[in-house]
Protein backbone atom coordinates (compact mmCIF):
# COMPACT_ATOMS: atom_id res chain seq x y z
CA UNK A 1 0.00 0.00 0.00
CA UNK A 2 2.64 2.39 -0.93
CA UNK A 3 1.48 5.42 -2.70
CA UNK A 4 4.44 5.56 -4.91
CA UNK A 5 3.59 7.78 -7.76
CA UNK A 6 1.71 10.28 -5.71
CA UNK A 7 4.59 10.64 -3.31
CA UNK A 8 6.89 10.84 -6.28
CA UNK A 9 4.65 13.55 -7.67
CA UNK A 10 4.90 15.52 -4.48
CA UNK A 11 8.62 15.16 -4.51
CA UNK A 12 8.58 16.64 -7.97
CA UNK A 13 6.31 19.46 -6.90
CA UNK A 14 8.68 20.25 -4.06
CA UNK A 15 11.52 20.37 -6.52
CA UNK A 16 9.75 22.54 -9.11
CA UNK A 17 11.30 25.86 -8.08
CA UNK A 18 14.79 24.53 -8.71
CA UNK A 19 13.84 22.64 -11.81
CA UNK A 20 12.18 25.71 -13.18
CA UNK A 21 15.18 27.87 -12.42
CA UNK A 22 17.45 25.55 -14.31
CA UNK A 23 14.98 25.41 -17.18
CA UNK A 24 14.81 29.20 -17.35
CA UNK A 25 18.56 29.36 -17.56
CA UNK A 26 18.53 26.92 -20.45
CA UNK A 27 15.58 28.31 -22.38
CA UNK A 28 15.91 31.91 -21.37
CA UNK A 29 12.20 32.25 -21.48
CA UNK A 30 9.78 31.54 -18.70
CA UNK A 31 7.00 30.27 -20.90
CA UNK A 32 9.23 27.91 -22.79
CA UNK A 33 10.78 26.86 -19.50
CA UNK A 34 7.44 26.01 -17.93
CA UNK A 35 6.51 23.83 -20.86
CA UNK A 36 9.86 22.16 -20.66
CA UNK A 37 9.49 21.58 -16.93
CA UNK A 38 6.12 20.02 -17.48
CA UNK A 39 7.45 17.74 -20.18
CA UNK A 40 10.34 16.73 -17.94
CA UNK A 41 7.99 15.92 -15.10
CA UNK A 42 5.85 13.84 -17.37
CA UNK A 43 8.86 11.91 -18.46
CA UNK A 44 10.12 11.51 -14.92
CA UNK A 45 6.80 10.20 -13.71
CA UNK A 46 6.72 7.67 -16.50
CA UNK A 47 10.26 6.63 -15.63
CA UNK A 48 9.97 6.92 -11.87
CA UNK A 49 10.75 3.24 -11.47
CA UNK A 50 14.12 3.84 -12.96
CA UNK A 51 15.19 6.44 -10.47
CA UNK A 52 17.75 4.84 -8.22
CA UNK A 53 17.28 5.73 -4.63
CA UNK A 54 20.51 6.74 -3.08
CA UNK A 55 21.40 8.82 -6.10
CA UNK A 56 20.63 12.48 -6.36
CA UNK A 57 17.08 13.18 -7.36
CA UNK A 58 17.91 16.69 -8.48
CA UNK A 59 20.69 15.53 -10.77
CA UNK A 60 18.39 12.92 -12.25
CA UNK A 61 15.73 15.52 -12.94
CA UNK A 62 18.19 18.01 -14.38
CA UNK A 63 19.43 15.40 -16.76
CA UNK A 64 15.96 14.52 -17.95
CA UNK A 65 15.08 18.13 -18.43
CA UNK A 66 18.26 18.99 -20.23
CA UNK A 67 18.03 16.03 -22.55
CA UNK A 68 14.53 17.12 -23.50
CA UNK A 69 15.80 20.58 -24.14
CA UNK A 70 18.58 19.33 -26.36
CA UNK A 71 16.03 17.26 -28.26
CA UNK A 72 13.89 20.32 -28.75
CA UNK A 73 16.79 22.37 -29.99
CA UNK A 74 17.71 19.66 -32.42
CA UNK A 75 14.16 19.42 -33.67
CA UNK A 76 13.96 23.15 -34.09
CA UNK A 77 17.09 23.12 -36.13
CA UNK A 78 16.02 20.31 -38.37
CA UNK A 79 12.62 21.87 -38.74
CA UNK A 80 14.36 24.93 -40.04
CA UNK A 81 12.75 27.23 -37.59
CA UNK A 82 15.01 30.06 -36.78
CA UNK A 83 12.79 31.26 -34.03
CA UNK A 84 15.04 32.94 -31.57
CA UNK A 85 13.74 32.61 -28.10
CA UNK A 86 16.70 34.27 -26.58
CA UNK A 87 15.49 37.72 -27.37
CA UNK A 88 16.36 38.95 -23.94
CA UNK A 89 18.05 37.75 -20.86
CA UNK A 90 15.60 35.80 -18.76
CA UNK A 91 17.34 35.24 -15.50
CA UNK A 92 18.12 38.89 -15.15
CA UNK A 93 14.51 39.88 -15.47
CA UNK A 94 12.60 38.49 -12.53
CA UNK A 95 8.96 38.24 -13.45
CA UNK A 96 7.92 39.86 -10.23
CA UNK A 97 8.48 43.40 -9.07
CA UNK A 98 10.79 42.73 -6.14
CA UNK A 99 13.21 44.98 -4.41
CA UNK A 100 14.97 45.92 -7.55
CA UNK A 101 17.03 48.56 -5.86
CA UNK A 102 18.60 46.23 -3.42
CA UNK A 103 19.42 43.81 -6.15
CA UNK A 104 20.99 46.16 -8.63
CA UNK A 105 24.43 44.78 -8.15
CA UNK A 106 23.30 41.21 -8.11
CA UNK A 107 21.16 41.72 -11.12
CA UNK A 108 24.18 42.44 -13.13
CA UNK A 109 25.54 39.11 -12.04
CA UNK A 110 22.37 37.47 -13.30
CA UNK A 111 22.73 39.36 -16.56
CA UNK A 112 26.33 38.26 -16.82
CA UNK A 113 25.28 34.65 -16.33
CA UNK A 114 22.67 35.11 -19.00
CA UNK A 115 25.37 36.38 -21.25
CA UNK A 116 27.53 33.29 -20.99
CA UNK A 117 27.57 30.84 -23.83
CA UNK A 118 25.15 27.99 -23.15
CA UNK A 119 27.81 25.37 -22.35
CA UNK A 120 29.31 27.61 -19.72
CA UNK A 121 26.00 28.74 -18.37
CA UNK A 122 24.65 25.27 -17.80
CA UNK A 123 27.73 24.01 -16.05
CA UNK A 124 27.77 27.09 -13.85
CA UNK A 125 24.11 26.63 -13.01
CA UNK A 126 24.52 23.01 -12.07
CA UNK A 127 27.57 23.43 -9.88
CA UNK A 128 27.53 26.89 -8.39
CA UNK A 129 23.81 27.49 -8.26
CA UNK A 130 22.27 24.05 -7.90
CA UNK A 131 25.29 22.74 -6.01
CA UNK A 132 26.01 19.57 -7.84
CA UNK A 133 29.51 18.19 -7.64
CA UNK A 134 31.71 18.18 -10.73
CA UNK A 135 31.04 14.51 -11.09
CA UNK A 136 27.31 14.91 -10.83
CA UNK A 137 27.34 17.77 -13.28
CA UNK A 138 29.41 15.65 -15.65
CA UNK A 139 26.77 12.94 -15.45
CA UNK A 140 23.95 15.35 -16.10
CA UNK A 141 25.72 16.82 -19.08
CA UNK A 142 27.17 13.61 -20.37
CA UNK A 143 30.69 14.97 -20.56
CA UNK A 144 33.94 14.12 -18.79
CA UNK A 145 34.76 15.76 -15.48
CA UNK A 146 37.77 17.44 -17.03
CA UNK A 147 35.50 19.17 -19.49
CA UNK A 148 33.21 20.27 -16.70
CA UNK A 149 36.15 21.78 -14.92
CA UNK A 150 37.63 23.61 -17.83
CA UNK A 151 34.25 24.99 -18.87
CA UNK A 152 33.41 25.96 -15.36
CA UNK A 153 36.69 27.73 -14.79
CA UNK A 154 36.22 29.68 -18.00
CA UNK A 155 32.62 30.44 -17.12
CA UNK A 156 33.65 31.90 -13.81
CA UNK A 157 36.43 33.97 -15.23
CA UNK A 158 34.03 35.36 -17.78
CA UNK A 159 31.44 35.97 -15.13
CA UNK A 160 33.92 37.74 -12.89
CA UNK A 161 34.97 39.93 -15.73
CA UNK A 162 31.48 40.71 -16.98
CA UNK A 163 30.04 41.42 -13.58
CA UNK A 164 33.09 43.09 -12.19
CA UNK A 165 33.46 40.57 -9.43
CA UNK A 166 36.81 40.91 -7.78
CA UNK A 167 38.75 42.12 -10.77
CA UNK A 168 41.46 39.53 -10.85
CA UNK A 169 44.74 41.06 -9.94
CA UNK A 170 46.24 42.36 -13.11
CA UNK A 171 48.44 39.69 -14.39
CA UNK A 172 49.59 38.54 -17.71
CA UNK A 173 47.90 35.52 -19.12
CA UNK A 174 50.96 33.41 -18.83
CA UNK A 175 53.56 33.87 -16.20
CA UNK A 176 55.04 30.53 -16.61
CA UNK A 177 58.65 30.72 -15.72
CA UNK A 178 58.31 34.42 -15.16
CA UNK A 179 60.11 36.05 -12.32
CA UNK A 180 58.57 38.67 -10.19
Amino acid at each position, binding site marked *: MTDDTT*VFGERLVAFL*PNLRRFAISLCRSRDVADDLVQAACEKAIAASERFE*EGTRFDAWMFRILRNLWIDQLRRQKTAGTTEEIEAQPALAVPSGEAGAEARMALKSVAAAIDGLVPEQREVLMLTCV*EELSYKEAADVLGIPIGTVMSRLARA*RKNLAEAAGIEPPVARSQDMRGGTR
Partner: protein
Amino acid sequence: MSDTEFSDEILMAFADGELDEETTRRVEAALETDDELMARVAMFMETRAAASEALKPVLDEPVPDELVRKVRAMAAAADRANGAQRPEAPVYTDENVVAFRRPADREAAPVRSVSRPMMAMAASLLIVAGAAGGYLLRGGAFEGAGSIEVAGAIDARLSAILDHSPSGEEVPVSGGSGTVRLVSSFELGSGQFCREYELTRTGQPDLVSVACRDASVWQTRLAVVRPRSGDGYAPASSLETMDAYLTSIGAGQPLDAEAERKALAGSK
Protein backbone atom coordinates in the same frame (compact mmCIF):
# COMPACT_ATOMS: atom_id res chain seq x y z
CA MET B 1 57.67 29.27 -5.60
CA SER B 2 55.28 30.68 -8.07
CA ASP B 3 51.54 30.15 -8.06
CA THR B 4 51.65 29.35 -11.70
CA GLU B 5 52.16 25.74 -10.88
CA PHE B 6 48.49 25.69 -10.06
CA SER B 7 46.09 25.74 -12.95
CA ASP B 8 42.76 27.52 -12.80
CA GLU B 9 41.05 24.18 -12.57
CA ILE B 10 43.03 23.21 -9.53
CA LEU B 11 42.38 26.47 -7.77
CA MET B 12 38.74 26.28 -8.66
CA ALA B 13 38.50 22.76 -7.31
CA PHE B 14 40.20 24.02 -4.18
CA ALA B 15 37.66 26.81 -3.84
CA ASP B 16 34.85 24.35 -4.41
CA GLY B 17 36.19 21.82 -1.96
CA GLU B 18 36.64 19.24 -4.67
CA LEU B 19 40.39 18.94 -4.56
CA ASP B 20 42.17 15.87 -3.28
CA GLU B 21 43.80 16.14 0.09
CA GLU B 22 47.37 16.24 -0.98
CA THR B 23 46.94 18.98 -3.54
CA THR B 24 44.76 20.85 -1.09
CA ARG B 25 47.65 20.89 1.33
CA ARG B 26 49.99 22.16 -1.33
CA VAL B 27 47.61 24.94 -2.29
CA GLU B 28 47.11 25.88 1.32
CA ALA B 29 50.81 26.07 1.89
CA ALA B 30 51.28 28.24 -1.17
CA LEU B 31 48.43 30.50 -0.16
CA GLU B 32 50.22 31.45 3.01
CA THR B 33 52.78 33.40 1.13
CA ASP B 34 51.19 34.20 -2.18
CA ASP B 35 48.60 36.97 -2.35
CA GLU B 36 48.14 36.66 -6.03
CA LEU B 37 47.27 33.05 -5.67
CA MET B 38 44.81 34.05 -3.00
CA ALA B 39 43.21 36.49 -5.40
CA ARG B 40 42.76 33.77 -7.97
CA VAL B 41 41.17 31.48 -5.42
CA ALA B 42 39.00 34.31 -4.15
CA MET B 43 37.71 34.91 -7.64
CA PHE B 44 36.41 31.37 -7.77
CA MET B 45 34.89 31.61 -4.35
CA GLU B 46 33.23 34.87 -5.11
CA THR B 47 31.83 33.88 -8.46
CA ARG B 48 30.22 30.87 -6.87
CA ALA B 49 28.68 32.90 -4.10
CA ALA B 50 27.61 35.65 -6.47
CA ALA B 51 25.99 33.26 -8.93
CA SER B 52 24.15 31.47 -6.20
CA GLU B 53 22.99 34.69 -4.62
CA ALA B 54 22.01 36.36 -7.86
CA LEU B 55 19.73 33.55 -8.93
CA LYS B 56 18.08 33.04 -5.61
CA PRO B 57 15.17 35.33 -6.47
CA VAL B 58 14.21 32.99 -9.29
CA LEU B 59 13.61 30.30 -6.70
CA ASP B 60 11.24 32.56 -4.85
CA GLU B 61 9.08 33.17 -7.84
CA PRO B 62 5.85 31.34 -7.38
CA VAL B 63 5.66 28.28 -9.54
CA PRO B 64 2.66 28.74 -11.81
CA ASP B 65 -0.34 27.01 -10.25
CA GLU B 66 -1.17 25.39 -13.51
CA LEU B 67 2.20 23.72 -13.66
CA VAL B 68 1.82 22.36 -10.15
CA ARG B 69 -1.66 21.14 -10.94
CA LYS B 70 -0.54 19.40 -14.07
CA VAL B 71 2.33 17.65 -12.35
CA ARG B 72 -0.02 16.40 -9.66
CA ALA B 73 -2.56 15.32 -12.22
CA MET B 74 0.08 13.41 -14.16
CA ALA B 75 1.31 11.70 -11.04
CA ALA B 76 -2.22 10.82 -10.02
CA ALA B 77 -2.97 9.47 -13.48
CA ALA B 78 0.15 7.36 -13.40
CA ASP B 79 -0.92 6.13 -10.02
CA ARG B 80 -4.27 5.01 -11.29
CA ALA B 81 -2.66 3.43 -14.31
CA ASN B 82 -0.40 1.48 -12.03
CA GLY B 83 -3.48 0.26 -10.29
CA ALA B 84 -1.92 1.28 -7.06
CA GLN B 85 -4.56 0.27 -4.61
CA ARG B 86 -4.62 2.48 -1.67
CA PRO B 87 -6.94 2.05 1.19
CA GLU B 88 -7.00 5.65 2.07
CA ALA B 89 -6.19 8.30 -0.42
CA PRO B 90 -4.20 11.19 0.93
CA VAL B 91 -6.05 14.44 0.87
CA TYR B 92 -4.34 17.42 -0.56
CA THR B 93 -5.19 20.82 0.62
CA ASP B 94 -4.32 23.90 -1.32
CA GLU B 95 -1.14 24.20 0.62
CA ASN B 96 0.37 20.89 -0.38
CA VAL B 97 -0.36 19.43 2.95
CA VAL B 98 -1.15 15.80 3.07
CA ALA B 99 -3.77 15.14 5.64
CA PHE B 100 -2.69 12.71 8.26
CA ARG B 101 -4.29 10.83 11.01
CA ARG B 102 -5.51 12.98 13.76
CA PRO B 103 -3.48 12.68 16.84
CA ALA B 104 -5.29 11.06 19.68
CA ASP B 105 -4.94 14.08 21.85
CA ARG B 106 -7.75 16.53 21.61
CA GLU B 107 -5.58 19.62 21.77
CA ALA B 108 -4.74 19.20 18.17
CA ALA B 109 -5.95 22.05 16.07
CA PRO B 110 -7.57 21.22 12.78
CA VAL B 111 -5.10 20.90 9.95
CA ARG B 112 -6.68 23.77 8.13
CA SER B 113 -5.82 26.24 10.77
CA VAL B 114 -2.25 25.05 10.71
CA SER B 115 -1.91 25.32 7.04
CA ARG B 116 -2.79 28.97 6.87
CA PRO B 117 0.53 30.31 8.12
CA MET B 118 2.29 27.71 6.08
CA MET B 119 0.81 28.87 2.88
CA ALA B 120 3.32 31.51 2.07
CA MET B 121 6.23 29.26 2.68
CA ALA B 122 4.91 26.05 1.32
CA ALA B 123 6.02 26.48 -2.24
CA SER B 124 9.08 24.36 -2.01
CA LEU B 125 8.02 22.13 0.78
CA LEU B 126 6.57 18.75 0.83
CA ILE B 127 4.82 17.69 3.89
CA VAL B 128 4.25 14.04 4.34
CA ALA B 129 2.65 12.28 7.15
CA GLY B 130 1.40 8.84 7.79
CA ALA B 131 -2.10 8.03 6.81
CA ALA B 132 -3.83 5.37 8.84
CA GLY B 133 -1.59 2.39 8.80
CA GLY B 134 1.04 4.52 7.28
CA TYR B 135 2.40 4.41 3.85
CA LEU B 136 6.02 4.33 3.06
CA LEU B 137 7.73 7.24 1.60
CA ARG B 138 8.83 6.10 -1.76
CA GLY B 139 12.40 5.15 -1.96
CA GLY B 140 15.00 2.61 -1.15
CA ALA B 141 15.95 4.38 1.99
CA PHE B 142 12.59 3.47 3.36
CA GLU B 143 12.23 0.05 1.97
CA GLY B 144 13.64 -3.31 2.68
CA ALA B 145 16.06 -4.46 5.27
CA GLY B 146 18.01 -1.89 7.12
CA SER B 147 15.66 0.82 6.13
CA ILE B 148 13.73 3.24 8.18
CA GLU B 149 10.10 3.91 7.82
CA VAL B 150 9.18 7.40 8.74
CA ALA B 151 5.56 7.76 7.89
CA GLY B 152 2.93 6.34 10.14
CA ALA B 153 3.96 3.82 12.73
CA ILE B 154 7.67 3.99 13.28
CA ASP B 155 9.83 0.95 12.96
CA ALA B 156 11.63 -0.66 15.83
CA ARG B 157 15.03 0.77 15.14
CA LEU B 158 13.94 4.34 14.91
CA SER B 159 11.67 3.78 17.89
CA ALA B 160 14.63 2.63 19.92
CA ILE B 161 16.55 5.73 18.95
CA LEU B 162 13.62 7.94 19.90
CA ASP B 163 13.27 6.06 23.16
CA HIS B 164 16.86 6.34 24.24
CA SER B 165 18.96 8.96 22.49
CA PRO B 166 19.18 12.37 24.09
CA SER B 167 18.66 15.48 22.03
CA GLY B 168 21.76 16.70 20.33
CA GLU B 169 22.90 13.18 19.62
CA GLU B 170 23.48 11.92 16.13
CA VAL B 171 22.86 8.27 15.43
CA PRO B 172 24.03 6.64 12.23
CA VAL B 173 21.36 4.58 10.46
CA SER B 174 20.92 2.64 7.26
CA GLY B 175 24.36 1.15 7.48
CA GLY B 176 26.01 4.49 7.99
CA SER B 177 24.49 6.07 4.90
CA GLY B 178 22.15 8.11 7.01
CA THR B 179 21.92 9.91 10.30
CA VAL B 180 19.18 10.59 12.76
CA ARG B 181 19.84 13.73 14.70
CA LEU B 182 17.67 14.26 17.73
CA VAL B 183 16.63 17.89 17.88
CA SER B 184 14.41 18.23 20.92
CA SER B 185 11.91 16.62 23.21
CA PHE B 186 8.70 18.18 24.39
CA GLU B 187 5.34 17.35 25.74
CA LEU B 188 1.92 18.18 24.42
CA GLY B 189 -0.66 19.73 26.66
CA SER B 190 -1.99 16.25 27.18
CA GLY B 191 1.35 15.18 28.56
CA GLN B 192 2.13 13.08 25.52
CA PHE B 193 5.86 12.83 24.88
CA CYS B 194 7.09 13.95 21.45
CA ARG B 195 10.41 14.35 19.75
CA GLU B 196 11.64 16.33 16.83
CA TYR B 197 14.42 14.82 14.81
CA GLU B 198 16.17 15.16 11.49
CA LEU B 199 16.83 12.33 9.14
CA THR B 200 19.64 12.79 6.67
CA ARG B 201 20.40 10.24 4.04
CA THR B 202 22.81 10.17 1.18
CA GLY B 203 21.11 11.28 -1.98
CA GLN B 204 17.86 11.98 -0.23
CA PRO B 205 16.22 15.18 0.76
CA ASP B 206 16.62 15.93 4.41
CA LEU B 207 13.64 15.25 6.51
CA VAL B 208 12.56 17.04 9.63
CA SER B 209 10.06 15.08 11.56
CA VAL B 210 8.00 15.08 14.71
CA ALA B 211 6.96 11.84 16.34
CA CYS B 212 4.87 11.36 19.43
CA ARG B 213 4.67 8.38 21.69
CA ASP B 214 1.31 6.88 22.30
CA ALA B 215 1.35 4.02 24.79
CA SER B 216 4.96 3.25 23.94
CA VAL B 217 4.32 3.29 20.20
CA TRP B 218 5.91 6.08 18.21
CA GLN B 219 3.82 7.73 15.54
CA THR B 220 5.02 10.23 13.03
CA ARG B 221 2.95 13.34 13.23
CA LEU B 222 4.62 15.39 10.60
CA ALA B 223 7.59 15.09 8.33
CA VAL B 224 8.77 17.97 6.27
CA VAL B 225 10.85 17.22 3.25
CA ARG B 226 12.71 19.82 1.40
CA PRO B 227 14.79 19.70 -1.68
CA ARG B 228 18.47 19.36 -1.07
CA SER B 229 19.27 22.32 1.00
CA GLY B 230 22.36 24.10 0.05
CA ASP B 231 22.58 27.55 1.42
CA GLY B 232 20.10 29.14 -0.84
CA TYR B 233 17.34 26.59 -0.87
CA ALA B 234 14.06 26.88 0.89
CA PRO B 235 15.55 29.03 3.57
CA ALA B 236 14.44 28.00 7.00
CA SER B 237 10.87 27.74 5.92
CA SER B 238 10.67 24.03 6.59
CA LEU B 239 11.52 24.80 10.14
CA GLU B 240 9.01 27.60 10.29
CA THR B 241 6.40 25.18 9.08
CA MET B 242 7.47 22.77 11.73
CA ASP B 243 7.21 25.49 14.34
CA ALA B 244 3.76 26.49 13.16
CA TYR B 245 2.73 22.88 13.41
CA LEU B 246 4.17 22.42 16.86
CA THR B 247 2.38 25.50 18.08
CA SER B 248 -0.84 24.23 16.65
CA ILE B 249 -0.68 20.92 18.47
CA GLY B 250 0.04 22.60 21.76
CA ALA B 251 3.64 21.59 22.04
CA GLY B 252 5.31 22.87 25.16
CA GLN B 253 8.80 24.27 25.42
CA PRO B 254 11.57 21.82 24.66
CA LEU B 255 12.43 19.81 27.73
CA ASP B 256 15.76 20.55 29.27
CA ALA B 257 18.35 17.83 29.50
CA GLU B 258 17.30 16.75 32.95
CA ALA B 259 13.59 16.56 32.19
CA GLU B 260 14.36 14.77 28.97
CA ARG B 261 16.49 12.23 30.75
CA LYS B 262 13.62 11.50 33.09
CA ALA B 263 11.16 11.16 30.24
CA LEU B 264 13.52 8.86 28.38
CA ALA B 265 14.21 6.81 31.49
CA GLY B 266 10.49 6.22 31.75
CA SER B 267 10.62 4.65 28.33
CA LYS B 268 11.05 1.14 29.34
